[in-house]
């Protein structure tokens, strides 16, 4: 019954018409007043996001009033009230294991969380304006290690990147069920971004998927600065099928010169005249602005000689969305810092995530290792990005300090605030975007930190140091200034630069001994040993016997002052070397909150690195057959035991006489025909012949599937099939008798190798 019909029951027609008209006008006035007062969300539900969307570890509701942020180490999601800068944490909601991505629907009524270890997406009901924060009421099973997720612009579909099963799960948000799984031809889908043409149709968008690690380029050799390229898969949301792949090219000139060229057999000299290139790697995230998509990434410049400013670079690549091609506008953000005239430079190490303003051609990149956010402006026509200078001091790059190890950023719909998720400090930084210069206005705790004095607290300090390019340490004297900047020169490098999440960047670096693929550190200690006291020799040539020996990497690769100090507690101890004369463990160290820095770093490697989970079933008949063939071929003689390598440090450092020969723990090396001194990249960083004739430490097979395309110490094999094509290698366990001549048998072994993870039973 209409208002007029009701009125007609009580009054004459003309009076009723007059009264009902005024009621309509009054209603309109009330609605207008409410809308102007900003309370429109109560009346008009937001059903569509504004602008393109990126996957992030934190998410805003459509009106920007509420925020959700994952706490990967706490297995929870925190929810925040942002209204009127309240910046108040409302609740910490437990989800499943290791949440790395979260989204909120535009109306803020539901949250979806990607639980990486559990392989699920949690669904929560929310009505935060009404105080309601529901528990996860449903766990949707997706692929292996779902890392990130995003909603389509109208929230009809949820896309989930399964980082280990190399697929995208498509979830219908109405039924909350997986309606399709899109297989990807490329490994490790990581970052997601989706276009938004601002209509009701979610079937006319393009989904972009970045692949974390880069891929070998045919004809190139590992160790070259252009050996690999990055890839982005494009998916049409009309059909939810792959429509193309964008190749992100290496850059020919990083803007930084080397003083030699190892691959050209030119040893380091006095002059820095050698141009260095870099290829894109660690494509964790991407963001769309206009006709372009932008990918912050860590460029790898592996050719020697080793020096702090010619190894990793801070790249921002650009995709032309119209052509689907690399726009070839990649910039090296480090260069902007190098060019600043002001001193106290802080480089932008490990660019990890990015977000754009909605109404301006301005974006912000988080530097995960340097704990800052840097501003970037983009040319809307050409797509070229430029690192912005500080408007109040144009002698320097604008760097906004945030928390420890920032890993995600979102910007509210009216472009007044940015929110940054800080992984290590477990908090959220609020940045005011309205002033002449962006500034941090609040830090909100997201999840509790470990209790001081516990092993967890020590691991946490280690995680902080592992992931920072700077390092902030306790003062040398009480009440003195903190000691800073010991991890690298000007914040250039971090352990995580080459070991993201403690794993591997899969780059073959031309290092001191020769070409060396980065070894993932989840294999350093025997994870079946509760005390983590059994460790393999470190580096491919067993040149190290302690975690603390990597003090030499901090000093010699990253040009940091290091953590081992003299008795005054601050002066770097010059007497640090591999093996002898002194063990490096237990030396006088800098401390963080009273925790010795190297003890903490070691604890992180022991207890804080999670091996990737294989998507391959252990009961797959091919896997079972491959395991039997592996065992019959006695592969376990080198790759057996709980660490999936036979090698061990079998002494308490420092080693006794005869243990170390030629700088290697000689007894732990195996020569199985994987060293070809004639190979182009078998060269030391100083141009001399590389180390390897004595063999190598058998690499651990634990979770080796996660680092595809580049195998053996120098990347000589591009696949596991190629690894097994080496007869000497595959016959090493059977006294040279080749039991694997049948290619089908070898394929079974490959299948078995791809299945090995922490859930696999070791072979002895």
């Amino acid at each position, binding site marked *: 019954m209409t208002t007029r019909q009701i009125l007609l029951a009580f009054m004459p027609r003309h009076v009723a018409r007059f009264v009902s008209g005024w009621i309509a006008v009054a209603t309109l006035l009330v609605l207008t007043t409410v809308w102007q007062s900003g309370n429109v969300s109560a009346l008009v539900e937001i059903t569509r996001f504004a602008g393109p969307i990126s996957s992030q570890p934190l998410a805003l509701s459509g009106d920007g009033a509420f925020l959700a942020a994952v706490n990967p180490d706490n297995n929870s999601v925190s929810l925040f009230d942002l209204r009127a800068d309240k910046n108040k944490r409302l609740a*910490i909601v437990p989800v499943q294991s290791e949440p790395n991505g979260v989204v909120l629907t535009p109306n803020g009524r539901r949250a979806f969380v990607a639980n990486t270890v559990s392989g699920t997406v949690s669904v929560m*009901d*929310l*009505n935060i304006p009404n105080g309601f924060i*529901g*528990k996860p009421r449903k766990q949707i099973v997706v692929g292996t290690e779902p890392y990130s997720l995003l909603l389509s612009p109208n929230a009809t579909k949820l896309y989930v990147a399964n980082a280990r099963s190399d697929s995208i799960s498509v979830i219908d948000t109405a039924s909350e069920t997986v309606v399709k799984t899109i297989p990807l031809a490329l490994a490790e889908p990581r970052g997601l971004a989706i276009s938004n043409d601002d209509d009701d149709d979610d079937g006319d968008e393009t989904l972009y998927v970045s692949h974390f690690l880069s891929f070998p380029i045919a004809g190139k050799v590992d160790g070259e600065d252009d050996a690999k390229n990055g890839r982005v898969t494009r998916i049409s949301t009309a059909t939810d099928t792959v429509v193309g792949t964008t190749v992100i090219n290496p850059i020919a000139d990083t803007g930084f010169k080397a003083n030699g060229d190892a691959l050209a057999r030119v040893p380091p000299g006095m002059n820095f005249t050698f141009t260095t290139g870099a290829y894109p790697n660690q494509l964790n995230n991407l963001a769309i602005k206009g006709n372009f998509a932008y990918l912050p990434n860590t460029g790898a410049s592996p050719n020697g000689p080793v020096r702090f400013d010619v190894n990793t670079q801070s790249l921002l690549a650009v995709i032309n969305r119209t052509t689907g091609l690399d726009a070839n506008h990649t910039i090296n953000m480090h260069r902007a810092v190098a060019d600043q005239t002001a001193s106290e430079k802080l480089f932008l190490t490990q660019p990890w995530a990015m977000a754009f303003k909605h109404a301006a051609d301005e974006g912000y990149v988080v530097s995960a290792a340097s704990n800052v956010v840097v501003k970037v402006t983009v040319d809307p026509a050409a797509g070229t990005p430029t690192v912005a200078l500080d408007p109040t001091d144009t002698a320097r790059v604008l760097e906004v300090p945030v928390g420890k190890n920032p890993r995600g950023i979102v910007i509210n719909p009216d472009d007044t605030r940015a929110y940054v998720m800080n992984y290590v400090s477990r908090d959220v930084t609020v940045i005011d975007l309205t002033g002449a210069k962006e500034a941090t206005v609040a830090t909100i705790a997201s999840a509790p930190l470990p209790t001081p004095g516990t092993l967890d607290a020590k691991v946490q300090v280690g995680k902080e140091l592992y992931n920072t390019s700077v390092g902030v340490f306790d003062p040398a004297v009480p009440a003195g200034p903190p000691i800073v900047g010991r991890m690298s020169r000007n914040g250039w490098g971090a352990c995580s630069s080459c070991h993201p999440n403690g794993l591997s960047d899969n780059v073959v670096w031309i290092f001191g001994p020769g070409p060396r693929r980065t070894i993932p550190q989840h294999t350093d200690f025997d994870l079946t040993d509760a005390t983590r006291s059994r460790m393999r020799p470190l580096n491919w040539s067993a040149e190290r016997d302690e975690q603390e020996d990597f003090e030499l990497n901090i000093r010699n690769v990253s040009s940091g002052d290091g953590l081992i100090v003299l008795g005054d507690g601050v002066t770097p101890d010059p007497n640090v070397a591999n093996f002898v004369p002194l063990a490096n463990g237990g030396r006088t160290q800098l401390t963080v909150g009273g925790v010795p820095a190297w003890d903490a770093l070691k604890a992180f490697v022991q207890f804080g690195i999670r091996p990737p989970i294989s998507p391959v079933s252990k009961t797959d008949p091919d896997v079972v057959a491959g395991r039997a063939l592996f065992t019959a071929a006695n592969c376990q003689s080198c790759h057996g035991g709980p660490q999936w390598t036979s090698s061990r440090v079998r002494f308490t450092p420092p080693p006794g006489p005869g243990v170390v020969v030629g700088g290697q723990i000689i007894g732990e090396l195996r020569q199985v025909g994987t060293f070809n001194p004639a190979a182009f990249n078998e060269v030391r960083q100083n141009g001399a012949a590389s180390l390897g004739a004595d063999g190598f430490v058998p690499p651990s097979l634990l979770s080796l599937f996660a680092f595809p395309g580049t195998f053996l110490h120098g990347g000589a094999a591009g696949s596991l099939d190629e690894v097994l094509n080496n007869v000497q290698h595959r016959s090493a366990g059977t006294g040279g008798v080749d039991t694997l001549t049948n290619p089908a048998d070898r394929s079974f072994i490959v299948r078995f190798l791809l299945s090995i993870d922490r859930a696999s039973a070791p072979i002895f």
Partner: protein
Amino acid sequence: MTNMMMCLAPYLLAVGRFVRSQHIRKASMSFRFRTRSHHIVCVLGAVVVGSLFFATPASAGSIAVDTWYEFGFGDVGTVATGCDPADPAGPFCIPSGGTATTFLDAPPWTFTSGATGSTLTATDAFNSGDRFELFDFGVSIGFTSAFGANVDCGDDPVPCLADADMSHGVFALASGNHSITIEVAEGGFGLGYLLLQDGGGAEAVPEPATLVLFASGAATALYRRRRQS
């Protein structure tokens, strides 16, 4: 109490004997009820005890006077819960930033009113638009008021109660035991508060459990009178 022990004794002893002897027939015969009426009264007593036991599930908890309790609720037609962690089945409630409040545990919420009865106040919180129906031992004791304009009274129960646009209600309860549940009548997915205060109770209306108790007492009196005669 003596009477109760007299009633329980045959069962307790029988069970004890059964456990010892593993012989049910011997055990059941070893202690006899004194009379047929004694048996009837004891069975009736057991019903009383049972009704009280089942009226207050173990997971539910009692509530105290003069304390603001926060509860959560889902969709219309569902029963309100407590708040996590007090009620593991409840949502994560946003606590009051002003007046001291506490999270309710799982429903039903029980209490015993004194001689002057009790007053139970319920109010919606945060956004208006929610309305509730309250039940005592499953019997409706009424609805909260109709809500008014769209307002946000915040997380504090006191200003929320004072806001005419927020749905709330004050219910007079008689002396005796009460077991309260709340059902969402309008709105949904939010939080609200309960406040129990002494006095102001309505005239007692016997509840089912009270009726059984009354019947038990009458039967006992009748039994004793018959024995004395």
